[in-house]
C-alpha cells in the first residue's frame, strides 16, 4: 500500500480522498511503544510550572484588557460615552459599538451589539497598562440602557406570552423531528409504559484556565496565543472578522488548562483583543476572570425531557417517544450541537421511535458543547427509565439492557464497526464491580446503600479527514513530527509520539512533537467529539510510514538487500529473520547528512459500510444518609469500548476526570439564576460547587482494549467524553436502589435529596415513575 490521492466529482463538486498508504494494525500486531503508559512529554514542564500558557505570554509593551459587560438581561444601549475612560492615565484603547465597525458574530448579532441579551454580554473593552487600570477604566464608561423584558427560565421562555429574544420567537429554527416506525401506535402494544418528565440543569465547564488570548500585530500580521481547542477555527474566524487573509493570522496554543468543549469556537475575546491591539499599537492580553468565564463563555444547556418508554413484559422495548426542550441561552454559537435526541434513537434496539427537540432562546449566557453534549443530558433520562422498567418487570438492570441490545446503528442502518463493543463493556464492568455478587448489608442506622448501573453510546470518537502530519527524519535518527492539531491537556502529544515511535521502530524519546501552531503545522480539525487521536493518529502513521519507506530504500542500497526484506527494531535496521547484519538509523543517515527524509501523511476516509461508535457502562455504589440527605459515592467501576488503548495511563486520566465531572453533574453542580433579576447568582467557584478530592471515590477502570481495526489504521477511537456520560444516571439508579426514590431533576443536591426524603417518608416503598 502507498499513499494515494483520489479526485473525482461528486454532486457537482470536487471530492478529494486521500489514503495513509499503510496497512492497519490489528489485534495481533505486536506493539512496543503503543500500549505503554509513557509519561506525558510535557509532564515535567507542567509540574515544575514552566509550561507556558496563553496567560503566561509577556511581550514588550504588552497591555491588559478588560471587558465591560451588560448588567441587564435584556436591554438596548441608547448611549455610550467612553471619554472619561479614555482620559484615564494608562489607558491606551477603548472600543465599543460607538467607535468600532459592526463585525458580525453569533447569528445576526455583532461583536459589540446595541442590543444586549444576557447579563455578561459584551458592551465595551479597554486596554491599559495593567489589569487594575483597565478595571478602573471600565467604571468610567457611561452607558445608558433601555431595559427590555427578559426571560431566563426554560419553562417560562416557551410560553406564548414570554418576552421574545428574536422577532421569530424563542424557539430557534424548526423543531428537529425524527421518526422510525410509529412510536405512538406501537406504544399501545406495550405491557408497561413509563411516562415521565425529567430535567437537567445548566452546568458550567469551569476550566481551570479561563478563556482568553494574548495578541500581537507585526505590520499587517497578527499572532494570537489562544486558549483554544482549535487553532484553525480561531484563525479562520479572526481573519474573517478582521477582513484579512488567513495566512496573515498565526494562532498558537502550546498548553491548555482545560476546554471541555467550551473552547471549540472563537469567542468575542478572540476578536476584541486584536481590535484593541490594533488601536493601541501594542500587544494585548485578554484573559477572562472567573466571573466572566462562568457568565459568558458557555454552559451545558438546561433541558426538559418528557418521555414515554413502552416495553413488553419480557423487557423488550416496543416504543420510545421523547419531547425535548434545550435552554440554549441568548445566542447559538456553533460547534458541536447538543444532540439530546441521539441516544434515544440508537442505544437500544427499538423499531418505533419518535423524538422531537426544540432549541429555546432565553436571556442567559449562550450554551456551547460541554463534554458529550446532549448525551449527558439524555443519559440522565434514558438510563433511569431503563432502570425503572427493569424494576417494574423484576429484571436485573443489566439483563434488560442485554435484551435490548443492538449490534447495528439503527439510524444509519449499518452494522457497528465493533458490533460487540457494548457487550464487552457489560461483561467487563459487571465482573470488575462484582455485580453478580450479593450486595453488602444495605442498612446501617440512618444509612442506606445501593448499587446502580448505566450504559451509553457516543456518536463521535472515530475521527475523520481531513487531517495532516509531516514527519522529518534527522541524520541522527530522531524524528520531528509536525501537525496542526492541539493538545488540550489530554496527552495528544504523547500519544502521537507513541504512534510515530511504533511506526518507525524507535523509542518515544526519539520523537519530538510540534503542534498547536497554524504557521508550522498542516491543517488538523478541532479537538472535539473525542476525535483528536482518531483523526490525526492515522495521518501521523502515514507520515512516518512515508519516512520509513524512504529510509529502507537508503538502507537497502547500503546493505545490498531488497528493501522489502528489511525491518526496524529498537532503532536498528536488520534483515527480517536474521541478526548478523544490522545498522542503526543514524549509521544509514550519516552518509547523506545533513539530508533529511520528509514524510507526509493524510488521514484516510472512514469506511462507508459501517457505523463507528464508542460505548461504555458503569456500576456505582452509593450510601444515602436518610436523616441528613448526604449522598456518598463509595466506588465506581467503568468499562469503555474505545478501541485500542494507546496509553493506558493517559486513558485512565481521562476516565478519572470524566467521572469526577459526572459526580459533580449528579450531585452538586448547577448554575443558579435569579429569574426576577435575570442574574446568575453563582458565577464563581465558591457557590458553584465542583467536586473536591473527598467527593471522588476509588475509580476502577476495567480496560476493554479491543482494537477497532475497521475504524481506522490505528484501531484507536476516542475516550475524552464517554466516561462522563453514564455517571449521573448510575448514581441516581443507586440512590433509587438505596432509598426507593426516583430523582427526576438533576442535580441531586442536599436540598433536593432531603426534600424528596421528606415527601416520601424516609423508608418509603419504591415509587413508580410519575
Amino acid at each position, binding site marked *: 500500500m502507498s499513499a494515494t490521492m483520489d479526485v473525482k466529482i461528486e454532486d457537482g463538486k470536487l471530492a478529494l480522498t486521500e489514503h495513509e498508504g499503510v496497512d492497519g494494525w490489528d489485534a495481533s500486531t505486536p506493539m512496543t511503544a503503543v500500549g505503554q503508559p509513557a509519561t506525558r512529554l510535557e509532564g515535567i514542564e507542567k509540574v515544575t510550572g514552566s509550561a507556558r500558557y496563553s496567560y503566561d505570554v509577556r511581550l514588550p509593551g504588552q497591555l491588559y484588557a478588560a471587558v465591560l459587560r451588560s448588567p441587564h438581561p435584556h436591554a438596548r444601549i441608547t448611549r455610550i460615552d467612553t471619554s472619561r475612560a479614555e482620559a484615564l492615565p494608562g489607558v491606551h484603547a477603548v472600543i465599543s459599538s460607538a467607535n468600532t465597525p459592526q463585525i458580525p458574530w453569533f447569528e445576526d448579532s455583532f461583536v459589540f451589539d446595541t442590543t444586549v441579551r444576557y447579563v455578561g454580554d459584551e458592551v465595551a473593552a479597554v486596554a491599559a497598562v495593567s489589569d487594575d487600570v483597565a478595571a478602573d477604566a471600565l467604571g468610567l464608561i457611561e452607558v445608558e440602557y433601555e431595559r427590555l423584558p427578559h426571560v431566563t427560565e426554560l419553562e417560562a421562555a416557551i410560553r406564548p406570552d414570554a418576552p421574545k429574544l428574536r422577532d421569530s420567537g424563542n424557539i430557534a429554527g424548526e423543531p428537529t423531528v425524527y421518526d422510525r416506525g410509529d412510536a405512538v401506535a406501537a406504544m399501545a402494544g406495550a405491557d408497561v409504559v413509563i411516562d415521565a418528565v425529567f430535567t437537567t440543569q445548566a452546568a458550567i465547564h469551569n476550566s481551570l484556565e479561563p478563556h482568553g488570548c494574548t495578541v500581537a500585530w507585526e505590520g499587517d500580521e497578527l499572532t494570537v496565543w489562544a486558549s483554544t481547542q482549535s487553532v484553525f477555527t480561531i484563525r479562520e474566524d479572526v481573519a474573517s472578522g478582521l477582513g484579512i487573509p488567513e495566512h496573515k493570522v498565526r494562532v498558537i496554543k502550546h498548553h491548555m488548562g482545560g476546554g471541555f468543549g467550551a473552547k471549540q469556537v472563537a469567542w468575542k475575546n478572540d476578536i476584541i483583543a486584536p481590535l484593541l491591539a490594533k488601536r493601541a499599537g501594542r500587544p494585548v492580553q485578554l484573559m477572562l476572570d472567573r466571573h466572566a468565564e462562568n457568565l459568558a463563555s458557555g454552559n451545558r444547556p438546561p433541558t426538559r425531557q418528557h418521555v414515554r418508554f413502552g416495553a413488553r413484559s419480557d423487557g423488550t422495548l416496543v416504543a420510545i417517544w421523547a419531547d425535548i426542550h434545550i435552554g440554549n441561552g441568548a445566542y447559538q454559537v456553533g460547534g458541536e450541537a447538543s444532540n439530546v435526541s441521539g441516544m434515544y434513537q440508537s442505544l437500544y434496539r427499538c423499531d418505533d421511535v419518535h423524538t422531537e427537540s426544540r432549541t429555546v432562546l432565553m436571556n442567559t449566557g449562550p450554551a456551547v458543547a460541554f463534554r458529550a453534549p446532549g448525551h449527558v443530558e439524555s443519559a440522565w433520562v434514558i438510563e433511569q427509565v431503563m432502570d425503572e422498567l427493569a424494576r417494574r418487570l423484576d429484571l436485573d438492570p443489566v439483563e434488560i439492557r442485554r435484551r435490548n441490545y443492538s449490534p447495528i446503528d439503527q439510524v444509519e442502518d449499518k452494522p457497528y464497526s465493533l458490533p460487540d463493543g457494548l457487550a464487552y463493556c457489560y461483561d467487563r464492568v459487571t465482573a470488575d464491580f462484582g455485580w453478580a455478587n450479593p450486595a453488602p448489608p444495605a442498612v446501617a442506622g440512618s444509612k442506606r446503600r445501593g448499587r446502580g448501573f448505566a450504559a451509553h453510546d457516543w456518536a463521535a470518537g472515530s475521527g475523520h479527514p481531513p487531517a495532516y502530519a509531516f514527519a522529518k527524519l534527522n541524520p541522527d535518527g530522531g524524528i520531528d513530527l509536525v501537525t496542526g492539531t492541539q493538545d488540550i491537556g489530554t496527552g495528544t502529544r504523547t500519544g502521537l509520539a507513541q504512534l510515530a515511535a511504533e511506526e518507525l521502530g524507535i523509542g518515544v524519546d526519539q520523537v519530538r512533537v510540534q503542534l498547536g501552531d497554524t504557521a508550522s503545522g498542516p491543517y488538523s480539525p478541532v479537538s472535539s467529539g473525542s476525535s483528536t487521536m482518531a483523526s490525526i493518529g492515522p495521518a501521523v502513521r502515514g507520515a512516518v510510514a512515508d519516512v520509513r519507506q524512504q529510509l529502507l530504500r537508503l538502507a537497502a542500497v547500503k546493505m545490498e538487500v531488497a528493501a522489502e526484506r528489511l525491518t526496524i527494531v529498537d532503532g536498528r535496521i536488520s534483515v527480517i529473520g536474521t541478526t548478523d547484519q544490522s545498522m542503526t538509523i543514524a549509521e544509514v543517515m550519516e552518509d547523506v547528512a545533513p539530508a533529511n527524509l520528509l514524510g507526509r501523511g493524510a488521514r484516510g476516509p472512514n469506511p462507508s459500510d459501517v457505523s463507528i461508535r464508542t460505548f461504555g457502562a458503569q456500576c456505582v455504589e452509593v450510601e444515602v444518609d436518610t436523616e441528613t*440527605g448526604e449522598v456518598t459515592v463509595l466506588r465506581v467501576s467503568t468499562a469503555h469500548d474505545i478501541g485500542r488503548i494507546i496509553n493506558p495511563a493517559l486513558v485512565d486520566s481521562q476516565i478519572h476526570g470524566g467521572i469526577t465531572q459526572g459526580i459533580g453533574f449528579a450531585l452538586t453542580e448547577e448554575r*443558579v439564576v*435569579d429569574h*426576577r*433579576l435575570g442574574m446568575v447568582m453563582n458565577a464563581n467557584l465558591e457557590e458553584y*460547587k465542583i467536586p473536591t478530592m473527598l467527593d471522588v471515590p476509588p475509580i476502577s477502570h476495567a480496560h476493554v482494549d479491543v482494537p477497532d481495526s475497521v475504524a481506522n489504521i490505528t484501531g484507536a477511537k476516542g475516550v475524552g467524553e464517554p466516561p462522563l456520560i453514564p455517571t449521573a444516571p448510575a448514581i441516581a439508579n443507586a440512590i433509587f436502589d438505596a432509598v426507593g426514590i426516583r430523582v427526576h431533576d438533576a442535580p441531586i443536591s442536599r436540598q433536593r435529596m432531603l*426534600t424528596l426524603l421528606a415527601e416520601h417518608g424516609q423508608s418509603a416503598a419504591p415509587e413508580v415513575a410519575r
Partner: protein
Amino acid sequence: MRPFAYERPESITVALSRLGDDVDGAAVRPLAGGTDLLTLMKADIVAPHTLIDLKRVVELDDRIEMTAEGMTIGALATLAQIESHPDIVGSYAALAGAASQAATPQLRNMATIGGNVLQRPRCWYFRDPQISCWLKGGDSCPARDGENAHHAIFQDSPCVAVHPSDSAAALIALDATVRIRGASGERAVSAGQFFALPTDEHRLESVLGPDELILGFTLPAPAAGSRSVYLKAMDRKTWAFALVGVAASVTVTGGTITDARVVLGGVEPIPRRLIAVEELLHGSVPSDDLFRRMGELAVVDAQPLSQNGYKVDLARALVTRALADATAPAG
C-alpha cells in the same frame, strides 16, 4: 479593588487610634488574615482607604494556653493552629472540629480566629456589588423571595443571610468570653452576647465597635464529664460553608445531664443558641428518644423560606445526632 493605604503599627494604642479616626467604621479597617476582608474589597462591598495590619501589634498574639482556669486563645491564632492544638482537640473538641471543617488548609493557615467570628455573610445578594440589599443599606432583602436555598430558617431580622463562621457556634457552646480592647480600655463579653442580630440602626452581626479590636477568647476549664462536638452539613464533602452546623457541649454527671449548651449555625444571621433545648436537657437522662425530641424542639420556631425547608430537617437531624455524639460512651 480600589487603592488603599497600608499601615503596620506595633502598638495597639496606635492601631485603635487609627481605627478611631474613622467615625463610620468604613474607611479604616483592621486586617488580620484577610481571607474575608480582601474578598469584600475585591467585590467592592467595602472600600476602606486604609488597612491597619494587626500582625505586628505587640498586644495581639496567636498564643494558645491552657491554665487551671481554662484556655486562652489569642485573636491572631489561625484556624490551623486551633484545629491541631492538643489541648483544644482534647478538651474543646467542638472548637477543634469547627476549625478543622472550615474552608481549606490554605485558608486555615491564613485565617485568624478573631477574623473568623467577624466574617460577613456569604449571601450571594450581599456579595454581588450590582445588587442592592438591606444589609448593605438598601430598602429590602432580595433573598427573602429570591434564591434562598442557603438562607435563614428563623426570621428574627430583616436580613435572611446566615452566619458563616463554624467556630462562632463552637465558642458559644463552649461558653467562651470575648476579650475586647477599645480606646477606653478592655471589656469582656460572653460569646453568646457578642453576636447580635442586625437591626435597621446596626446592620452588622456583632456588638464590636468600629474602634474596637478582639484581643482573644477565654474558655472555662471543661467540667468533669463534659464533652463537646461540632457537626457540619455541606453541599459537598469539604470546602463549603455550612448549610447547617451544630455545636453542642454536654456535661453528664452520674448518668444525668447537668449542663448543656447547644448552638445552631447556618440558620440565621448569627449563631442561634437553643436555650429551650438546654433547659429541658438539664436534669434529664440521655436517651435517643430525648435527643429526638430535642431535635424537634430545636426547629419548632423555624419559618423556612420558599427554598430552604430542607434545612429544618437538617437542623433537626444534626441536633439529635450531636447530642447523641456528645453523650455517647467514650471509645
